[in-house]
């Protein structure tokens, strides 16, 4: 796209409800889907991007793998992991993606609850990052469940309310709808349905507070799930009192850093889609997010250490698992903390972006350690997922990236959607129809 625009500098990419010329008629849905290019132009620019070819190869190999998993059964993809019942689909897809998606509730509450309107240019990105992460966590879950068509059973068929997973199921379902409502404002603008947006905007505070409640509980619940297996998780990664706090607290920097990473990728690879407000405020906002993330990280580091001290588990640090623990903490937490804090101090957005990467890797590594690598450590071997399981995980993640990009290209996430005639750079006199429509709406 970047190259296409360089070659065709006059192209108008759709960022408004109506066309500038042609008497200001609204863009059709097809025009909006192709961003205002002709389908031929759109396909041509897509084909000229090598990343798309890379994605195509992954999908060509991976989608048959996903289909085969459902045709031949779970064992075709993951084997018979009786002692490691939760593999990559949940270890990475659910437990790894959900903390990185806590950005939705954090930015939503920063703006709506705490009144930090300076975060507005990045609020929608945070919320979109949230809903996509949760949505794809559910996709991963569907791939992992033995009988995914029974996913609604805990809601409607048979209740097990004393189970932590029951809480997770209900919360993720409810929170997905909360986030869908929050994201829908961008969708309504894009579709040209202002009534929908006005309706949602009235609920903004309620949605944001619901987001805080649901997120506190289910982020923690994902950790509480591991307290069912006290003897199976390595003691360095297990603490009866702190387990859910590890998960909740680390999800905070995880989500903020994911927004830093995604917004960096956006501005580097789709600068044409970002408006000036976004471009000009991004460095400042990323540093502000990094400030928040480092506060989260220092809390996380403290409780990880207190957890060890509380149960007096220092002796384990001398073992091989201890070295692996120190790597996780050293790379994922301490190095991240140093990078983020130095970045904030010196106003260096490069360091902040680097620190954001190490933070999210550290959070994901922690989840994998709890649910996969150290799980049943006393059996004496580490569970390494088979190739097909890895391939399916990579494929679903690729679909996630493609969906993410497709939405960022179109919906007003990184830019402001122009709906008022006065915002257009048009020379024609304002058509009567629009004057009447806008007058009617303002009544």
């Amino acid at each position, binding site marked *: 796209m970047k190259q296409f625009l360089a070659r065709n500098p006059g192209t108008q990419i759709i960022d408004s409800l109506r066309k500038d010329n042609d008497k200001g008629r609204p863009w059709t849905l097809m025009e909006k889907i192709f961003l205002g290019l002709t389908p031929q132009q759109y396909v041509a620019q897509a084909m000229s991007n090598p990343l798309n070819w890379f994605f195509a190869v992954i999908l060509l190999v991976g989608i048959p793998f996903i289909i085969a998993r459902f045709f031949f059964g779970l064992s075709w993809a993951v084997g018979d992991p009786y002692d490691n019942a939760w593999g990559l689909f949940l270890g990475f897809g659910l437990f790894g993606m959900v903390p990185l998606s806590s950005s939705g509730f954090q930015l939503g509450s920063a703006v709506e609850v705490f009144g930090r309107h300076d975060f*507005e240019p990045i609020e929608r990105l945070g919320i979109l990052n949230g809903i996509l992460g949760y949505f794809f966590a559910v996709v991963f879950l569907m791939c992992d*469940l*033995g009988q995914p068509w029974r996913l609604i059973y805990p809601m409607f068929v048979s209740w*097990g309310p*004393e189970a932590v997973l029951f809480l997770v199921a209900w919360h993720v379902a409810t929170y997905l709808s909360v986030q869908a409502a929050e994201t829908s404002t961008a969708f309504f603008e894009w579709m040209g349905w202002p009534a929908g947006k006005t309706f949602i905007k009235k609920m903004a505070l309620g949605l944001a507070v619901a987001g805080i409640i649901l997120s506190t509980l289910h982020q923690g619940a994902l950790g509480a799930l591991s307290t*069912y297996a006290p003897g199976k998780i390595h003691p360095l990664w297990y603490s*009866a009192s702190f387990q859910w706090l590890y998960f909740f607290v680390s999800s905070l920097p995880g989500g903020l850093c994911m927004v830093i990473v995604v917004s960096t990728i956006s501005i580097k690879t789709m600068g044409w889609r970002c408006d000036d407000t976004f471009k000009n405020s991004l460095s400042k906002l990323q540093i502000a997010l990094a400030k928040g993330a480092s506060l989260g990280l220092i809390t996380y580091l403290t409780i990880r250490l207190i957890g060890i001290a509380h149960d007096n588990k220092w002796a384990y640090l001398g073992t091989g698992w201890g070295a692996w623990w120190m790597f996780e903490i050293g790379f994922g937490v301490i190095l991240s903390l140093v990078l983020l804090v130095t970045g904030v101090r010196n106003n260096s957005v490069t360091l902040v972006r680097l620190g954001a990467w190490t933070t999210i890797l550290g959070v994901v590594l922690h989840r994998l350690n709890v649910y996969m690598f150290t799980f049943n450590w006393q059996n004496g071997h580490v569970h390494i997922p088979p190739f097909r399981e890895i391939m399916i995980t990579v494929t679903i993640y690729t679909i996630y990236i493609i969906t993410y990009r497709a939405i960022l290209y179109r919906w007003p996430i990184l830019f402001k959607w122009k709906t008022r005639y006065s915002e257009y750079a048009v020379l024609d006199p304002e058509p009567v129809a629009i004057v009447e429509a806008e007058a009617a709406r303002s009544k």
Partner: protein
Amino acid sequence: MIERRDFLKGCLACGVTAATVSVAGTSAMAAGSFEGYPDAMGVLVDLTRCVGCRSCEAACNNEQKLPEPDLPFDDLSVFSEKRRTTEKAYTVVNEYKVADKDTLFRKIQCNHCTEPACLSSCFVNAYTKTKEGAVIYDASVCVGCRNCMIACPFNIPAYSYSSPLNPLVKKCIFCYDTRVKDGRPPACVEICPQQVMTFGRRSDLVKLGHDRIQANPGKYVDKLYGEKAVGGTSWMYLSSVDFDKVGLDGHIQNEPIISNVKDFLGFVPMVLSIWPALFTGVHLLATKNKDGHHDHEEGDHQ
């Protein structure tokens, strides 16, 4: 779809249960844990008697109509490695070479906990602890999340991963449907030529176990494994060596697994009741007198 009659029955059942619990369950409530059904059955396993003939494995396979095993049941080469329960075998016997004493064998199957971790971790309530002591499984509601396999402290439940359309948890159900429901011992107990296993009321077996330890000084370690482990199990073990040496976790907690989760579960009502007031309050404080930025319907970025 819940039929009206079923619904009424359900209400009645709930009411009766509530009444029963409030009348009869006071002592249990005071103790803070479930002591188990009074007439729950159990099995006492004496590891010193087992010779590793694997006839219990064969009986189980036959009773539960499980598929043919890869190796026949009289093939003793299976002892070369430590096996676990699988979708094809609800019970397996393992061999443990103990340094100073001779070889011991231990039969592995579901221990039918008094407060089962599989049951308390299941979000569709697929598991039931029956009053006869069996932990049974309702295949018709299982979603296949496999949290029970994560939670089971003995790594017992297996999963039929290979079935594309109806994969299910596979585990020993104490021959509930075919035998224990009618007061008959499970197939493995009945077939055992060495009388390794004694089937009886759990409370009687606890006494029997301790009597046997006292009557044979020096023969057993002074512990009845399963009497207290994870809140008590219906299957209990006597051994001549430390339980760690025969593949059982000798340091397992005495509290039921659910007690680990209570820290978090206790926090849930607090969040649900305090957070809404707290954060809407913060909102009022944070946004007061902020140059009209308070208003959400202002539409400043429409």
